[in-house]
């Protein structure tokens, strides 16, 4: 019974919220019409002028007047506030503008629209003022951190690395952007601090990846690939494909292939390099009997080279290792060429070929 009781609350709340939303909601066209017209155009013009002059105080005054302007209806007011907020994101805020935007993070939009494209009717604000205000706060936080970090980097302050794990996610984004903006010469001195921080288990991988990328530093990038967030590791694999990494690419990709989260992407990256680098092909074959073998097989298939087809065919026929054989079968299956089809066909005709391996081959040959 406890579970049922638990569910009644949210369901009733959703129903209540839907009923309230339904009451005042409009179709998109009508809502946009209601939010447009001369009253909006005049105020949009004022916003544009203020932004061009980078006048945060002026924008704060405008927003305050918009908030309390009883001569405009809610749809127009909310559209004006929405455009004001987007403009505010471009400015360096003063205290008053900050306060106004902070206040708007709790604003409940009155102009609601419905959408039917989900197959059922959903209601949402035409202009989500609160969400946009929170976005502006994040942008400001990021911009300020970016400026501070840029100064710190120019002055070669060492604490930019040690402080990074302690600041907010928005501020971290600012520091990341500052590192992206900085010239290679200003980042090089941070190498030792980054290596030390990585060795100590500090989460500074984002910064290490940027410095590694800008300075083509394989040791630093190794640290990112080995212990960084998987998403960053995947981004770093794309970086390695750049020409400046030639000579260091395959060892780094082999290293990445040791991590299950990066294994498949590393194999496919090695596959792209294999078009011009025979040693990459050998690496793929060497992984064929491992859990990364399916990705290695697909990477080999993308090469579609006669020699690759012959070797896969040979492995399929002769290997005593079940997993390796299946990966070779997958490789041939993924090559759309007469030679690969012939190889599959020949294998299927072999009396000694295991039934579970050949059962689908006739269907594949028809496709």
């Amino acid at each position, binding site marked *: 019974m406890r579970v049922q009781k638990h569910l009644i609350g949210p369901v009733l709340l959703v129903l209540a919220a839907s009923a309230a939303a339904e009451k005042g909601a409009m179709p*998109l066209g009508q809502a946009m019409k209601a939010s447009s017209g001369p009253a909006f*155009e005049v105020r949009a013009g004022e916003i544009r002028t203020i932004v061009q002059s980078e006048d945060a105080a002026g924008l704060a005054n405008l927003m305050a007047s918009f908030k309390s302007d009883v001569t405009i209806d809610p749809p127009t007011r909310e559209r004006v506030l929405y455009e004001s907020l987007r403009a505010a994101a471009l400015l360096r805020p003063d205290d008053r503008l900050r306060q106004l935007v902070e206040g708007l993070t709790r604003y409940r939009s009155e102009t609601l629209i419905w959408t039917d494209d*989900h197959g059922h009717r959903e209601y949402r604000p035409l202009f989500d003022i609160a969400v946009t205000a929170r976005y502006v706060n994040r942008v400001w936080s990021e911009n300020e951190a970016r400026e501070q970090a840029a100064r710190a980097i120019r002055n070669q302050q060492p604490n930019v690395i040690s402080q990074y794990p302690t600041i907010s996610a928005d501020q971290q984004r600012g520091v990341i952007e500052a590192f992206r903006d900085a010239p290679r010469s200003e980042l090089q001195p941070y190498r030792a601090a980054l290596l030390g921080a990585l060795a100590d288990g500090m989460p500074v991988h984002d910064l290490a990846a940027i410095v590694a990328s800008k300075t083509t530093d394989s040791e630093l990038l190794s640290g990112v690939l080995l212990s960084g967030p998987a998403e960053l590791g995947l981004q770093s694999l794309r970086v390695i494909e750049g020409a400046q990494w030639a000579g260091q690419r395959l060892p780094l990709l082999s290293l990445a292939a040791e991590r299950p989260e990066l294994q498949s992407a590393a194999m*496919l990256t090695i596959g792209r390099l294999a078009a011009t680098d025979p040693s990459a092909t050998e690496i793929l074959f060497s992984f064929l009997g491992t859990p990364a073998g399916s990705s290695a097989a697909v990477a080999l298939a993308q090469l579609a080279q006669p020699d690759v087809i012959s070797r896969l065919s040979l492995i399929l026929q002769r290997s005593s290792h079940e997993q390796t054989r299946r990966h070779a079968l997958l490789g041939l299956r993924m090559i759309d060429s007469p030679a690969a089809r012939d190889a599959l066909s020949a294998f299927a005709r072999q009396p000694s070929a295991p039934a579970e391996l050949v059962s689908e081959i006739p269907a594949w040959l028809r496709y």
Partner: protein
Amino acid sequence: MAPVLTMRGLVLASLLGLPVLGHGNCVFNSFGDIVNANDPGCRDIQLRYTRNDDTGNNIALGYDVPLPVESLTAIDGYRSYQSLHAQHQALDVLSPGVEGIVVGQTVAGRDIWAYRVGDPDSQTADGGTEPAALINGTIHAREWQAPEAVTELFEQLTEISADGGFGRYLYENVNVVILPVLNVDGFLQTQRFPDRSTASELQPRDGRMRRKNLRHSSSGSAVDEDLDQTADNFLGVDLNRNNPDGFGQNGGSSSGTTSIVYRGTRPQSEPEIAALLEAAKLGPESRLRLYTDTHSFSQIFITPITGASRQDRITRSLVGTMQTVLGGKYRYGQSTDFIGLTSEYFANELMIPAWTLEIEPLTPSVYGTDHGHSGFILPNAEVARMRDEVAAMLLAALYAQADKPTLLAARIRDAESGEIRYEASWGEAETGRQLTVSRNQAPMRWRNQAGALADFRQLAAPGMPEIGIQFPQLPADEDISIPAPSTAWKQTNGPDGVLRYRDDALEVIFTVPASFSISTPTPMVIAVDTTDITRSRLDADPSTRVAWNNRASGARRWVQDRRRADTANTGA
């Protein structure tokens, strides 16, 4: 004529690089559709998604714009179509019980693949007719959550198929047909332009925000895939409005070829829908017990209400089970005025539980700015969790639809002598099952990775079964009620072990009354009351078997009658 709105006077600001709602001169009607698709001021607007840049025609999401990644295995983010397809093919080649079938071609001639997952026979482990389920993904191109979630289900089904318990049970007792990417052309178009779209921030259309297939309404062939060639960017058919039940009805679709919900020229006109119907045949159709069409976003199950009350009750119960798996995170909704959805087709025509599953987020503002239909772009960081959650809900549905839990066997062993005193089981018979006194089965409990009995996510683990033993010829106070500590679910094979799956057999230790005589035949009644993982109670009559073959004829008649009434009412 529908009221229209012109949005002139904003392009100048856009050119200045100032923040402004990026919609050029697009005009919307009361239906919410763009009505001036041929106006260059609307048609040629190119939008770009960014993390934080909201100037000009940029649309800030508030998080990194997800890009498709080349990786067969699941990542923190989205895989490319090529990688997803390669993964599906790998699962086919590497996993027993998977069969990949080309079920049709897209408008542009690309193959559409479906995968049948489960043991190759068409029978359940105890000889019954095996049920089937159809899981459809990516009918709407921009809804990238769908192929990831459906692929996760595919991956998990193959990973657990030999676990001896829950996974093995599904493998042997349900034929799961998975169609991971139906709208292949559209999906590729979204991945070709992962950070670009066109027309209006209020209704972005092609590129990352393409929804429809690539049908060119005039030529019949595919539109070009170049975003900068804008003349045909609005064209395509909404595949989830191209189905017979409710086609062109109830205001849910449009006959305008540039509409976001253009339904096509006739029901099931599109080759992608033909492919979906082919996939259903792999069940085969007559054995389907479940259809899910996987979409995003808004975190809700939309279930067609067919009016066949028994079917509707089953559907509601099943959706309720899936909701409980995630503690009520997903909402429940009903569609009563049909508009040509695939779920409406399957619910009405095949008489099976069917729904449109809209994956998270609940609203576009949950993770970002709510700009430019950002709800369709779930951040990379949320994808792995989303995949697991949706797969868990679907696994629960498959388990619940596989069969009704049934008491199938009993054995009483004398603890002192070790001798079997009684043994009986229900086995396959011509009609249902019959009891054979001498000597199958669903795992009744979920275990976590440590092997301990556990909740299935937020679907709380049932308590121990209630067991009562009565002796009708003895005084009532001799009846035995078995306390929970005296029972244990079996996990291993062997004498008095599992019947077929881990946790499908319960060991109960009890002491017969002193007045009970082993030498004299004495009637004994064993009453067991329990529920399985998805809270389905034991079937009261093991001799009957759950059947779902060839639809429910009564319900079918009801739908046909109602259609006649609808036709009469509309005069069509």
